[in-house]
């Protein structure tokens, strides 16, 4: 009984414990190793960290929904790039010429619609053909990237709109715009997954699809909605990020899917579906960003970050396995 309670506590609070450990470690190690005099747990530093977590974090919320549902989406990086290009390119279209700053609204809407449509397309294919989501999104990862290149070849697409930059760089109550978006998305996704029928059904489908079908849940539409949401969130992430930077390369967003999946798995979501939470994912995103910043703080270079994150991911998987009685571990994709 004791071990059960302990493993439950570790599973639920593991990621937060890990974050605290990171904070302590980097603060102490920073005293001896850091070249700068500023403390690691500086408030400005932490606020910047939240802002930098936003691009990956917003997409990770969508991935949490898709993975709880028992699927996976490898095409988010390409969707992210397409949405960015639509956003920046559409602001220069002649049809929007007379709109003044209202063009921002049109471009945002357009980019978000494109992202949602691409996500829904993935979902529709998974639903109607019965091909595994891993294969469908592996294909569309290539296909969407092809669409990205169709816009402008290998050239970057750039368009800096100062009203938009001002908006993206604004700070409300000390938090950056991107941070607010991340917090809002986390809250909304948490609400959907825990307080709505769609959320409960998504868990049920991911846990045991057969049983969900027998219980009268329509599996297909739920999967498609989740894919549409992750497409929307990938576009939202791009819209928030590129409002500030104003320039997108056709290769942007590559490997995002891997970072996002890493964050989601660190946050405790099961790769086989049926378990996980957006709050845990939020922890996973913060943990990764802390690791990147912390290792930079104590003078390690990017190569160490890759090495450490890879090993931590495997370690988490191992610990998770030790804490769970065997069973659900088989790869179901």
């Amino acid at each position, binding site marked *: 009984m004791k071990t059960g309670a302990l493993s439950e506590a570790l599973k639920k609070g593991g990621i937060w414990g890990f974050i605290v450990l990171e904070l302590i470690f980097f603060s102490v190690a920073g005293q001896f190793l850091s070249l700068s005099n500023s403390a690691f747990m500086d408030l400005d530093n932490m606020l910047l960290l939240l802002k930098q977590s936003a691009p990956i974090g917003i997409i990770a919320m969508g991935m949490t929904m898709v993975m709880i549902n028992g699927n996976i989406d490898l095409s988010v990086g390409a969707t992210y790039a397409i949405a960015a290009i639509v956003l920046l390119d559409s602001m220069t279209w002649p049809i929007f010429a007379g709109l003044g700053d209202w063009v921002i609204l049109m471009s945002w809407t357009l980019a978000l619609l494109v992202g949602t449509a691409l996500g829904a397309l993935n979902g529709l294919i998974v639903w109607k053909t*019965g091909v595994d989501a891993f294969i469908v999104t592996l294909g569309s990862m290539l296909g969407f990237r092809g669409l990205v290149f169709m816009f402008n070849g290998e050239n970057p697409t750039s368009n800096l709109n100062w009203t938009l930059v001002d908006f993206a760089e604004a700070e409300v109550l000390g938090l950056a715009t991107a941070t607010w978006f991340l917090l809002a998305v986390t809250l909304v996704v948490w609400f959907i997954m825990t307080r709505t029928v769609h959320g409960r059904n998504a868990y049920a489908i991911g846990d045991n699809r057969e049983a969900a079908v027998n219980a009268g849940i329509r599996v297909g539409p739920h999967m498609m909605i989740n894919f549409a949401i992750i497409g929307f969130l990938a576009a939202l992430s791009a819209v928030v990020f590129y409002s500030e930077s104003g320039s997108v390369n056709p290769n942007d967003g590559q*490997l995002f899917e891997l970072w996002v999946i890493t964050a989601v798995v660190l946050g405790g979501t099961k790769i086989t579906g049926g378990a996980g939470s957006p709050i845990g994912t939020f922890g996973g995103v913060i943990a990764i960003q802390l690791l990147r910043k912390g290792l930079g703080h104590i003078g390690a270079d990017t190569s160490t970050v890759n090495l450490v994150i890879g090993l931590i991911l495997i370690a988490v998987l191992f610990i998770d396995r030790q804490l769970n009685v065997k069973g659900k571990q088989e790869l179901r994709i």
Partner: protein
Amino acid sequence: MATLTKQEIGTVLAKQGILIAFALFMIGFTLANAKFLSPDNLFSVVRSSTILGVMALGVTFVVISGNLDLSVGSMMSFSTIVVLDLHDKIGPLLAIPAMFAMTMALGAMIGFLVGYLKLNSLIVTLGMLSAIHGLTLTYSGGKNMDIDNKDGTWFDVFGQGSALGIPVPILIFIALAALLGLLLAKTPFGRKVYAVGGNGTAATFSGIHRARTVFACYIISAFCVATAGLIQASRSMGSQNTVGQGMELEVLAAVILGGASLMGGSGTIFKTVIGVLILGFIQNGLLLMGLQFYVQFIVTWIIIILAVWLDIAAKRGRLWSPIA
């Protein structure tokens, strides 16, 4: 025999669909551009597909055994960088076996985690993708690797040499495909790989050592990756740290296109070779038709989904999925 029922036609299509598609592509591209079928062009396509192809051979074993390997891309970068670095330090004769040993040690690590500890292969190899990339950067210090004296070494034979009029990389690819094809189709070990991937529990109950089989598959995969790294290093005689980045998914696409199921238990080396060639010829054929390079991404997208869809549609006997 004389009359085929609809179902039999379906079975034939399902079994040989990838070959039929391959033939159709070849005919289509030949009609579109006469240069497509010239021996020079065919050779150049096969030659440029060899690195992807060699890696796909190993991944076929892993996929048939019911697992995934997403780390082959960064592992290939690793072996390329290591062999180039060691070439100048200890000479090619020692550098090559040393690189093979290091790469296969990484493969053994993955094999241990997935086989013996039974961890989810998708996450393990995702973690290894990142970790090996970090290892490569640490090893090289982030700098590009180059061989100093490019003219005074025989190391270029693997990538640039030719024997009997055939480029050496193609010979390596053919030899490795034949060897691994035999291993998979004609030996007890090959049968075990299918058994473990088809139904792991049943395989265990029939006395097959499941962990050992999975472990061996990852070793084979690492061996193929090391070979691919050798060809890559020898072809370019210098390399960036990211030379193999993103290749893991291309390799997987080729294996899936060849008809291996991600659920494990099905696929053959021959079909994987066809999958690799289809990817190579599509790329080449579209370029010869004067289309931009990115059109191949879109075409590959459509082909992958269609190939897998028709495959499972034939198996379940209906086109659309029964998911409500």
